[in-house]
């Protein structure tokens, strides 16, 4: 039967190629449509469960992070705080002059960049688009003492570079010392720490939770505000991100910073929650929103975005259905005479159906090859964004559904037509 199916395919090669091309384009449309839907929720899905809390607050910026961090740590109604950390005692610098001369005091003190650290839980929430290398949680350190980090794209530091960060160790100064200062009775030892860059985050890629220097405009705050982008040229805001484990191994202190997702205990009353909000605003929280409002705004935003896709999805579905039905119907009609002759020569209708089925399978396989080829060509030529042509489980399921519909129609239609007519009727009709 397979041999006959193959022969059937070869006999109608042009027709089958045409049908395969049409099916391939239909699959590309289906993949792109599904990917478009998923791309609209790409940034919402990772944070949906996190912000879906009845009692909780989001603080997008605090005027004085140290004070705020301290206050919220003491607040007894706080169940959990999810935020990045800033390691103020470890700093690095973009200045060529200081780095070349290993001038640690200036690296630490003259317009330094601070280091951010993330817990594994936080880093796994959303992995940003990398220019090269690996994200923090994807990198496997060689040993527990390895000091590694990820940096946002910048003009100076690249993948596998080593950044010399400096930690200041504070010691009490000797009052008898010539330079003793009563107002700042400490001396500092500046210790260099080499940090290996294992990944570079692409410029303008969205990073979850870490704040850039942009100010927030007065708009409805939603999940998009949990992400920030970083310019390559803005070295003031370049982020060097370490894992919390690395910072702990170095024995450094760190405090909450940037965007704070504060989960409060479920049993607190609304009045208590308002009191906590007021308290936070008094302790330098600048932009604050309850999580349930954030969730509501986010759902509205996502629904608004998805609604825009409905027309094109509906059009794509109708087109897919109509093209499947029309091509299979016409295909079957064309082959009826051939099957009638086979029936007269001794074959059964069922055998003809199997041959038809095998022919369709081969055409479908050809269309799959053409689809994969087209997607690769589109990616190489950079005509469309990679995320729109990505093939994940949703896209595979959609394509499978289209194949099944196609094969069912192409199997059912011959059954309907052949069973209703005798071979003589089919032949004389032609």
């Amino acid at each position, binding site marked *: 039967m397979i041999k006959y199916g193959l022969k059937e395919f070869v006999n109608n090669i042009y027709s089958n190629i045409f049908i395969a091309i049409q099916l391939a384009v239909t699959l590309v449309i289906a993949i792109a449509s599904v990917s478009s839907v998923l791309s609209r929720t790409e940034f919402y899905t990772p944070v949906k469960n996190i912000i879906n809390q009845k009692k909780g607050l989001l603080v997008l910026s605090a005027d004085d992070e140290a004070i705020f961090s301290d206050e919220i740590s003491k607040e007894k109604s706080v169940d959990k705080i999810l935020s990045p950390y800033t390691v103020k005692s470890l700093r690095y610098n973009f200045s060529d002059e200081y780095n070349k001369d290993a001038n640690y005091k200036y690296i630490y003190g003259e317009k330094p960049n601070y280091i951010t650290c993330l817990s594994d839980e936080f880093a796994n929430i959303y992995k940003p688009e990398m220019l090269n290398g690996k994200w923090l949680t994807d990198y496997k350190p060689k040993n527990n003492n390895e000091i590694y980090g990820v940096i946002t794209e910048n003009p100076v530091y690249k993948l596998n570079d080593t950044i010399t960060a400096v930690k200041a160790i504070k010691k009490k100064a000797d009052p008898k010392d010539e330079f003793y200062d009563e107002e700042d009775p400490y001396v500092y030892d500046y210790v260099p720490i080499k940090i290996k860059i294992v990944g570079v985050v692409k410029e303008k890629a969205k990073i979850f939770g870490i704040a850039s220097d942009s100010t927030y405009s007065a708009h409805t705050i939603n999940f998009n505000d949990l992400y920030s982008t970083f310019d390559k040229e*803005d070295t003031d805001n370049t982020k060097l991100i370490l894992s919390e484990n690395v910072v702990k191994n170095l024995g450094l202190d760190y405090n909450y910073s940037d965007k704070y997702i504060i989960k409060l205990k479920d049993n607190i009353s609304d009045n208590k929650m308002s009191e906590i909000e007021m308290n936070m605003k008094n302790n330098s929280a600048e932009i604050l929103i309850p999580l349930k409002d954030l969730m509501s705004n986010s759902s509205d935003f996502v629904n608004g975005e998805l609604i825009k896709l409905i027309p094109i999805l509906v059009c794509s579905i109708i087109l897919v259905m109509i093209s499947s039905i029309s091509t299979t119907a016409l295909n079957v009609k064309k082959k009826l005479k051939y099957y009638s002759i086979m029936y007269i020569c001794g074959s059964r209708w069922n055998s003809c159906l199997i041959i038809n089925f095998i022919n369709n399978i081969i055409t479908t396989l050809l269309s799959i090859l053409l689809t994969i080829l087209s997607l690769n060509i589109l990616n190489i030529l950079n005509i469309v964004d990679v995320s729109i042509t990505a093939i994940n489980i949703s896209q595979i399921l959609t394509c499978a559904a289209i194949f099944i519909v196609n094969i069912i129609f192409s199997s059912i239609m011959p059954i309907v037509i052949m069973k209703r007519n005798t071979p003589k009727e089919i032949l004389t009709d032609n």
Partner: protein
Amino acid sequence: MTYILKNIKCFATKSTMVFVLFVLCEIASVFSILFAHGSYNNFQREKFAEKQYIDDANNSLDISFGNIIEAFTDEKGNVSSYNCDSAITVKQIQQFLGNIERKECRSVGFAFCIENNDESCMKYNKSSEIEQSMPMTYFRFDYDKKIKDFTIYDDFLKNVIISDGRYFTKEEYISDKNIVVMPADSDRDLLNKEIDLFGKKYRVIGFFKQDNYLEVPIKTLDGNLKIKYINILNNDVLTSKMYYQIRDELRNVVNVDVNMTPLKSLDLYEVKFFDSMIYLSIAVALVSAINLAILFRYILNLRRKQFAIFLITGSTKNKTRRMYILEIMLVSIFVFLICCLAYNFLIIPILTPFLKYISSAYDLKTYAIMFGIYISAIYIFINISIILSSRKSPVELLRERGK
């Protein structure tokens, strides 16, 4: 024409399933093509509107110095400028302009004004209605490649309106000649005369027609005069690189904080989404076209026997070809017109809440063009198909029927 209509009736009654399929496919394809056009235009306009908003926002960037006292926002809540407690001096700004001569950001234009505390400016200001203390001195700089220096902004030079006398030349603007263009409400008798300004003698060369400030070459001013704000003028796109170069170079000349209004940048994910939707629209149109092509090809194959009989009974190939073309085109034109009406009056109102620019993508001209392309494409395709099949003899066609 009678035969054509008879053929259509025959087709509809004898091959009902194929006829219904044909009409359904045509309807689906026409709607898809119309929708693809609208969708394409909608996302193009959304992308353009987004870029336009960013360009407009970035065309009015402000720079101020020192600690931020207050931030001013626009109607969308975006920061438009800062009020700060410090300033840059004339000498520092000249140093800054000198430093950026070889950098990419030299293509950016700068404008700023100096509030004159010099009382000598006041005595030439006749207007008593203006509450402001002193007439401002405005400067607008743009890099001139011929002169190889920053001089008067080209666009301003073309549009400046002088009532009496003349304005500066580009060379005079950056010279140290003590010449002045006076405010609109100054005494016109001062033209070509020398006046006391900033402790020096300045010769009056012209008067503004409407503007109530004066202008002198910057090099004639005291280097310690203060400038509170610098506006960035840029007809071209201000890139991130230029933005940060300006910031870094200003930091090199001043000892206080440099505060620039945030640079708006396109959300690249949005742009990629718009591009993908545009390509998706094109793909939808392509599938519709392929669908129709398969359909027409099948119908022509189905008519081989009929075609052969026509040839045997004396019809010429051209006559038969014209009959077939007219038959298919009559149905196609009818379907297209009905679909256009239904699309315009029923479907566009439903789509408008989802795709806000879609209704503006259609007008009579657009429909006419699409109709023309549609009919031409069908005509060409059917012609080619018929010509290819009519190369065979009627006997061969009869043998091949049903294949």
